[in-house]
């Protein structure tokens, strides 16, 4: 292992280079990062593979917390040892704010693009954010070892986006290591050194905060001014809490306690904080003894954008669901939840998420890590509803939608950026139009790919937009979006009634023009999904008291085994026992037995209204509107 001369707490800022890597998922960020660790000598080559595997195991055991969020890497260039701070960025669309904090902790960003695929919308959006933060961009094409790589084409694309020459775009292979040393040299040459005030009161930016089941909350910080010492009390300026630091240190590549962290350095602190909400991303850490007067700019509380109900299929699992959410919350300050009772689904939680991906991650973790069988209701956004009597309602759940006449409904909007090959321009435009999108500008980012800008209601995005975008562009389009104010819109609540009983889980707030198709599709879906029973079951969709669509499940007429002789008895008994077990998974809605699968399938968004019967029924429903 190499001997490091630059010690934490006493490294001159001029020797420090802090950077992050901006890359789309699968574009090879971790392979390149691993190569960097290896080349720097802090991980010996022979340990590389073991270490990598090792880390995966621990990650599996302990969740995602052990990841090298911020590694201190020595790199000698021109005979001088530099200290590189390599900061990880969350790569996805819902975590824009987290990404922006990670960017704020750096002076440079490596833009890593797969040479076989080119840049994706989310990467582009993060790139723009990095440019907005005035970061020095080092463009890099990865996977140049692959035969399908098209480095020249994509170098041109990148050059056009960041305003450099195609020849400035570095070419590397994380797999073979080719070009990675050059990349490190380039970082030292191009990325500016930090320019904080080492003498001022300490100010450090929290750019990540994770729960580790062994160590508690580990908070990753970038020192901006001054110095934090291991025995000083820390103060979180935004939330106003003071903690005793248990440990201050750097990661290189293991957690290494140090006596101090100085201006410009990247490291971690462990405090007694119980969950990540006591140590929030974006907050400023200062010394409690000698506090700074002004926090660093840009702190805000993440605000849930999308809500959905989560209900255990087996209601007995409700306490387990609560426990699981409490545990996830340790690691996820943005997750909010309150208990909710549904007539149809029993006890569960109304959960708020940053976006669809955040929602998917949470529900996948609940099922994978906590073994919970859940029904998730259709996601919806928050609405500000003003009733005719002037009363105002903050609606995060269709059941909170006020009855009676509505004066005004305001819904959240997003600015959506879509990158797609040019042959799909028409398809994307149709899709956006169908989803109430207002077209902004469109740019060619290369000769055959365009970036299109739309303003779209968030509600449209959360419903089925992304799936449809993927299917209409054969998977080639990528999407990024961020909040963009709000608008008032003509929205209605559509209820679904089974045998005359309103089923709260299926209610949805939709645009009036979409109400008919929602009603028709939902009633048709349920007709397919609910098994025939002893009596006829009407299924209706209604706006208020007005029925807009109906289907009938005819009464079951025959449900009998024709032959039951000596050799059939055991089999028949076992079949009945199996059916009995299946009945336990049925929800009773009034007298109607509804299989859990029906809820899951009915609440999954997806297919288009393409069959003729559906189209006819939607048209008929719209006609009755007159």
């Amino acid at each position, binding site marked *: 292992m190499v001997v490091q001369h630059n010690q934490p707490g006493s490294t001159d800022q001029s020797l420090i280079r802090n950077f992050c890597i901006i890359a789309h998922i699968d574009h090879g960020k971790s392979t390149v990062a691993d190569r960097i660790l290896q080349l720097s000598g802090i991980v010996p080559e022979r340990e590389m593979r073991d270490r990598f595997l090792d880390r995966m195991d621990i990650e599996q055991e302990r969740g995602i917390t052990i990841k090298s969020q911020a590694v201190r890497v020595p790199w000698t260039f021109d005979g001088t040892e530099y200290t590189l701070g390599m900061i990880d960025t969350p790569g996805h669309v819902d975590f824009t704010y987290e990404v922006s904090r990670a960017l704020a902790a750096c002076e440079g960003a490596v833009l890593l693009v797969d040479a076989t695929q080119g840049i994706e919308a989310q990467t582009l959006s993060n790139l723009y954010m990095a440019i907005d933060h005035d970061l020095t961009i080092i463009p890099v094409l990865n996977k140049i070892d692959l035969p399908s790589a098209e480095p020249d084409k994509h170098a041109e694309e990148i050059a056009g986006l960041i305003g450099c020459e195609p020849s400035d775009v570095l070419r590397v292979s994380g797999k073979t290591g080719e070009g990675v040393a050059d990349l490190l040299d380039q970082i030292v040459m191009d990325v500016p050194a930090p320019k904080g005030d080492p003498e001022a009161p300490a100010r450090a930016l929290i750019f990540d905060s994770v729960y580790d089941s062994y160590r508690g909350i580990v908070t990753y910080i970038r020192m901006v001014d001054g110095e934090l010492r291991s025995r000083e009390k820390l103060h979180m300026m935004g939330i106003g809490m003071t903690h005793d630091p248990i440990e201050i240190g750097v990661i290189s590549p293991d957690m290494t306690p140090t006596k101090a962290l100085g201006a410009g350095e990247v490291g971690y602190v462990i405090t007694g904080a119980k969950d990540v909400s006591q140590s929030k991303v974006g907050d400023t850490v200062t010394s409690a003894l000698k506090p700074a007067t002004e926090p660093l700019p840009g702190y805000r509380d993440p605000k849930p954008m999308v809500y959905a109900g989560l209900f255990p299929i087996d209601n007995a699992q409700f306490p387990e669901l609560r426990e699981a959410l409490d545990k996830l919350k340790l690691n996820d300050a943005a997750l909010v939840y309150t208990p909710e009772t549904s007539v149809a689904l029993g006890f569960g939680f109304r959960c708020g998420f940053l976006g669809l991906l955040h929602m998917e991650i949470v529900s996948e973790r609940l099922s994978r890590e906590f073994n919970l069988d859940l029904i998730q209701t259709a996601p919806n956004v928050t609405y500000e509803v003003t009733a005719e009597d002037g009363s105002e309602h903050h609606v995060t759940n269709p059941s909170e939608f006020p009855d009676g006449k509505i004066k005004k409904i305001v819904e959240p909007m997003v600015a959506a950026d879509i990158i797609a090959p040019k042959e799909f321009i028409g398809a994307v435009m149709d899709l956006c139009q169908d989803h109430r999108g207002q077209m902004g500008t469109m740019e060619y980012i290369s000769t055959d790919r365009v970036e299109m800008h739309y303003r779209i209601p968030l509600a449209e995005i959360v419903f089925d937009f992304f799936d449809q975008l993927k299917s209409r562009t054969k998977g080639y389009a990528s999407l990024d979006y961020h909040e963009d104010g709000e608008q008032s819109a003509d929205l209605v609540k559509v209820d679904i009634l089974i045998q005359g009983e309103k089923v709260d889980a299926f209610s949805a707030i939709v645009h009036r023009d979409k109400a008919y198709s929602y009603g028709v599709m939902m009633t048709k879906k349920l007709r397919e999904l609910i098994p025939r029973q*002893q009596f006829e079951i009407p299924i209706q969709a209604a706006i208020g008291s007005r029925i807009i669509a109906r289907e009938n499940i*005819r009464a*079951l*007429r*025959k*449900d*009998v*085994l*024709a*032959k*039951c*002789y*000596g*050799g059939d*008895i*055991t089999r*028949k*008994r076992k079949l*009945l*026992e199996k*059916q*009995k077990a299946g*009945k336990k998974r049925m929800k009773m809605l009034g007298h109607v037995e509804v299989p859990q699968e029906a809820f899951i399938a009915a609440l999954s968004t997806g297919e288009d209204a393409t069959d003729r019967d559906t189209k006819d029924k939607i048209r008929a429903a719209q006609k009755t509107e007159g």
Partner: protein
Amino acid sequence: MERGYPLEYEIYIHVPFCMRRCGYCDFNTYTAVDLGGGASRGNYANMVIREMRLVHDWQQAHGIDEPPASTVFFGGGTPTILKAADLVAVLDAIRETWGIVDGAEITTEANPDTVDADYVRELADGGFNRISFGMQSAVPSVLRTLDRTHTPANVVAGVEAANAAGMRSSVDLIYGAPGESLDDWRTSVKTAIDLGVNHISAYALAIAPHTKMGRRIAAGTLSTPDDDDEASKYEIADDLLGAAGLEWYEISNWARPGYESRHNLGYWRNVDWAGLGPGAHSHYNRCSVDSPEGVGERTTTPLGLRSWDIAHPRLWGRSIDGGKVPWAGSERISREENLEETIMLGLRIREGLDLSRLGGAVDMARIRPMEDEGLIEIRDGRVIPTRTGRLLNDTVIERFFDACSL
């Protein structure tokens, strides 16, 4: 739940041979003449008789002391593919082994193509008194779909031969074959009635996925039988048969009073029976061993036992040659399972489910609503399914399970 013991005792003989396999057939039957290992058509009676002796010894060794048989039933497959003398020899051996009560019902199933007047006469002389013909349909196109080879005229001849020999006869019908119209079905039922038989069975076509017909349906070359169509056909059969004086006594069986199949009623009353032949099931209400082979601890718990013979005739024959009762498997029937069987079988028959057999386990508040819904009638402590209750029999059974907290 304590029942008078011993109950009636019945014998079932499975004959696993056919000339050819019908497209819908899911039974344990083989078209080869000789399957090796002594399992040939010619040697079959001999093998069954040897099995009978092994089973009798096993019963003796395990505290099962059965009375003389009150019914004997030869089913298949096609029992009448064997020589009449073979069937009679098996019957004689049963008489020797367990005895047969006076006036016992002795039935064989018959393919109308495999019997003639002489054959029927030989059976009657040997002690058979009932014959059940596989008629299936009177409509040629339907018979073709069902893959049946017999000519409708042979059914008439068979029934006449049975009448002449003084035997009772029954015919089986199948409804719901792809392409069968409601009128086709009416024709079949009326034709069956016109035969003058006193017993008719009518079964909805059941499609097993691995049969020839099942594969054709999966491939889309044949339409799936439709439950609603089958329900209508059930009602047609019940109306026509009832009007002709044949009353339903089990979901799929109609008879003039006194002509019910006593053997089959035994199954629905859950009596004891020994099933002999490949794949045949046996049932004993009380058996004093844990292990069917007699290995293991004896128990005084009056658990029931059901066993089933090895399905393939060759392996079945090998087991008999080795002196072992040729069982493929068995299960002990717990009290709870016995209750489930009592319910599901009792709710199939017109004599109904005897509520006293449920031992007070049933919550009647959950049963009575089914009367109002027109699914059941309750008379003299017995629950009888209505026609709707017969068609929705599984629903009724499930609600009984619920009401018994099963």
